[in-house]
């Protein structure tokens, strides 16, 4: 595979040959012009970041390249030859593969079966998923990954699932690999590893396209960056020539912006005063068993005051989801107790609860229902919106319109399904629903995962505003930067146990060890 592109276009001025050239790509969805005459060029042996806000057209452009969509006009050449990428299969044949943000694995199948899905069965008709997937496993070993062949995918952490996706993409001898926001689901350590895989692929001569919106990641790993804004190409430049500030300007299109990635909100935090307050939520020696009876949380104790954000970090699958569900009243403790302002904890009444669940598509929203309906999950229960058992549809609709405006949810019509929205707008619906009721306790799980800068800032602002209003907030996140940025207190949940840390005093090495669950080795003062 390495050097496969060397014989094509030898007269190219640079040493790296052009792998992908998209010219004048236009794509419409109904009246909506998603891509307007976009040009995009990727060379072999480079990591090319495609940057833009949610809805800028990055995914659409890449879906055209990977054959999921066809463009209305425009031309695509691969290694100098005109390519007709009418289907994902055709794109794969042409050496283009995509690793999606939402995985395309069959959850109930084992790793081997998932890897064997794309591979034709042997001629004898005797089928062994292990044998069929053998080359894929070899490929994984080359990247230093050991995949558990006979474990069902649903039992694996997301990071490993993503590796399987990557191996699937590689198994078709892809020359061009597209990654759609690959770091959204990963923790810090996993992101580093992923980047080293990108570099390894670059050495092998692949072109790696990275759809991203985290500037720091782009600056860390990419060679070249192309920025899209509202369906148009804004700029394309080597990463060495740009700063975070220029990228942010290209992306948002405002010259007045100061360094976005570094921007902090007016510091409303007063760390000193919060420690003196009496706790609003007290968690005392709480243990919890999971759905299959396994111990998920081990004697957790912590307290959260009003006007305080308590940040809990850690890798997914260490009891985060269960803790969140416990705090919002969806689970019962096996041992220990929860107190609210030293009284009984009756979620819904005392305190009023706002819950931003981890997975907005799976848990946060009913995606096949309308935007309006999704905004009204709680409102339908309130007496103000009912008249003799019937719903006041008009008032509810007005409420939905108010929320759409107030939370800046960008929709064409509130009657469309939420499935049609970008991730950022979907999350805004969840946030709008939660914050409308002015909850006293907010539990937010990875509230900004997969969101662009604007949407992330919006969610952060909302959390800080709620904090200012007096809410007690438990923020569970895998993004340690987010935690240290927002939280008054921080802790790591690992293996069902909680270790608090002060972000100022803790080295990244120690954090890494904490995340990995080795509390003893980390040089921490509890």
């Amino acid at each position, binding site marked *: 595979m390495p050097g496969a592109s060397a014989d094509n276009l030898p007269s190219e001025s640079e040493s790296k040959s052009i792998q992908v050239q998209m010219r004048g790509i236009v794509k419409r969805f109904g009246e909506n012009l998603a891509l307007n005459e976009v040009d995009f060029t990727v060379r072999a042996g480079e990591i090319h970041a495609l940057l833009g806000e949610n809805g800028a057209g990055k995914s659409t452009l890449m879906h055209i390249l990977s054959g999921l969509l066809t463009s209305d006009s425009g031309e695509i050449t691969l290694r100098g030859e005109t390519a007709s990428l009418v289907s994902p299969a055709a794109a794969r044949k042409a050496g283009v593969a995509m690793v999606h943000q939402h995985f395309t694995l069959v959850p109930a199948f084992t790793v081997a079966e998932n890897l064997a899905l794309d591979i034709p069965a042997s001629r004898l008709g005797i089928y062994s998923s292990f044998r069929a997937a053998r080359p894929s496993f070899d490929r994984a070993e080359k990247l230093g990954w050991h995949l558990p062949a006979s474990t069902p995918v649903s039992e694996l952490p997301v990071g490993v699932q993503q590796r399987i996706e990557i191996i699937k993409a590689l198994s078709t001898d892809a020359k061009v690999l597209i990654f759609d926001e690959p770091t959204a689901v990963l923790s810090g350590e996993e992101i580093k590893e992923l980047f080293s895989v990108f570099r390894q692929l670059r050495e092998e001569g692949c072109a790696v396209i990275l759809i991203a919106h985290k500037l720091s990641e782009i600056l860390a790993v990419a060679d070249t960056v192309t920025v899209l804004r509202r369906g148009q190409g804004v700029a394309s430049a080597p990463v060495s020539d740009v700063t975070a500030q220029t990228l942010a300007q290209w992306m948002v299109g405002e010259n007045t912006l100061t360094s976005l990635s570094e921007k902090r909100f007016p510091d409303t935090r007063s760390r000193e005063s919060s420690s003196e307050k009496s706790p609003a939520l007290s968690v005392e020696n709480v243990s919890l068993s999971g759905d299959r009876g396994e111990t998920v949380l081990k004697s957790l104790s912590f307290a959260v005051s009003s006007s305080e954000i308590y940040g809990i970090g850690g890798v997914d699958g260490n009891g985060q989801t269960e803790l969140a569900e416990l705090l919002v009243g969806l689970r019962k403790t096996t041992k220990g107790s929860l107190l609210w302002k030293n009284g009984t904890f009756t979620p819904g009444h005392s305190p009023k609860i706002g819950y931003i669940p981890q997975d907005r598509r799976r848990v946060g929203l009913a995606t096949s229902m*309308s935007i309006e309906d999704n905004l009204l999950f709680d409102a339908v229960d309130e007496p103000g919106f009912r*008249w003799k058992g*019937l719903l006041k*549809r008009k008032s509810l609709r007005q409420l939905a319109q108010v929320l759409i405006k107030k939370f800046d949810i960008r929709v064409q019509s509130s*009657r469309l399904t939420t499935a049609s929205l970008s991730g950022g707008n979907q999350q805004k619906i969840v946030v709008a629903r939660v914050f409308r009721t002015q909850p006293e306790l907010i539990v937010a799980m990875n509230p900004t995962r997969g969101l662009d800068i604007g949407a992330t800032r919006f969610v952060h602002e909302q959390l800080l505003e709620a904090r200012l209003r007096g809410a007690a907030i438990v923020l569970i996140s895998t993004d340690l930067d987010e935690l240290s940025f927002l939280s008054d207190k921080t802790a790591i949940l690992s293996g069902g146990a909680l270790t608090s840390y002060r972000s100022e005093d803790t080295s990244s090495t120690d954090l890494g060890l904490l995340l990995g669950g080795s509390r003893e080795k980390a040089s921490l003062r509890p």
Partner: protein
Amino acid sequence: MIPPLRPMLSRRLMISALSTFAVLSLFGCGRTEPEATPPGGATTPGKKAEAVSGAFKVALVTPGSVSDGGWNASALAALNQIKGELGAETQNVEAKDASTQEENLRSYASKGYNIVFAHGGEFEAVALKIEKDFPKTLFVIPSGRTIGTNTTPVVLNLKEGAYLAGMLAAGMSKTGKIASVGATKSAVVEEVFKAYEEGAKAYKPTIEVIPTAYTNDWEDVGKAQQQTMALLSNGADVILQDLDQGAKGVFQAVDETSKPDKPVFAIGTNSDQNALSKNILASATIDITKAYVPIAKQVKEGTFKPNDTPYGMKSGVIGFVFNPAASAPLSADLKAKIDEATKKIIDGTLFPANSPAKAKP
């Protein structure tokens, strides 16, 4: 998927409209139908209808497929004869299940059909229920029992044939035991088997008649075969059946059991089944054509009135046919006695199972 429709009425208006609707539909209960007073004058029981003017239309509703080679096929044959002889316009349909009976009868009647032959006793309740809505249509129910305003039963004296079958069975039995297989127990069916027993005892008072075995299914071949096997192993050697498709099970069991030194026999009913096996001694037949065609003729002429006068051997509807290919010959004495009884039945001097004195000419 259709998106939720926009509310078109104001809520209050909608609710009041709907509640009115509900009250009307619920409390307007009970049926207050006007007495059937057709323009052509009311029909009362026993009153003759007028002769048919205009197109003469006849329909047939069968409980099963008309390609069954038996009960339903014979009805279609009758219908075709009516079409040919009387120039009637005819239609027929199969009412596959009970829930479509009424629909089919009503449909023909609503189209002004003069006669609807509803080919089975199971149609009687429905016909009596709807007859008042269609006073110009005559519903004909074979094996029925109730005379309605414009519904007539066709009482079939199959028992006359069964009486002869009993004599034959008693005469042919070597073991001195005979038996019978029926489907569902009903008065009509029980009369058939009673006549069978009477005939047997009349020929040979010492004969043992095993009580009828019922399968509860007119069509189930397997059940009929099992029941027959049980009877044969009990020592019976002649079996009368009164089944539809189930009859095949009886014949199969008999054919399997019969050996040259120990022959066993069956007797057919409802249609001439003699060709099905050489072990069938004879068949007590029903020729529905001989009942349906005269009824149609009288309706056309305007002379018919609903009645329950039975159709027996005299009218030719019921017959008794020996199997010329039967494996065992019958004695001259037996033959003579059966012929004599046949004559008496036709003359009206012998009444198997108390068949009423009145009989069709």
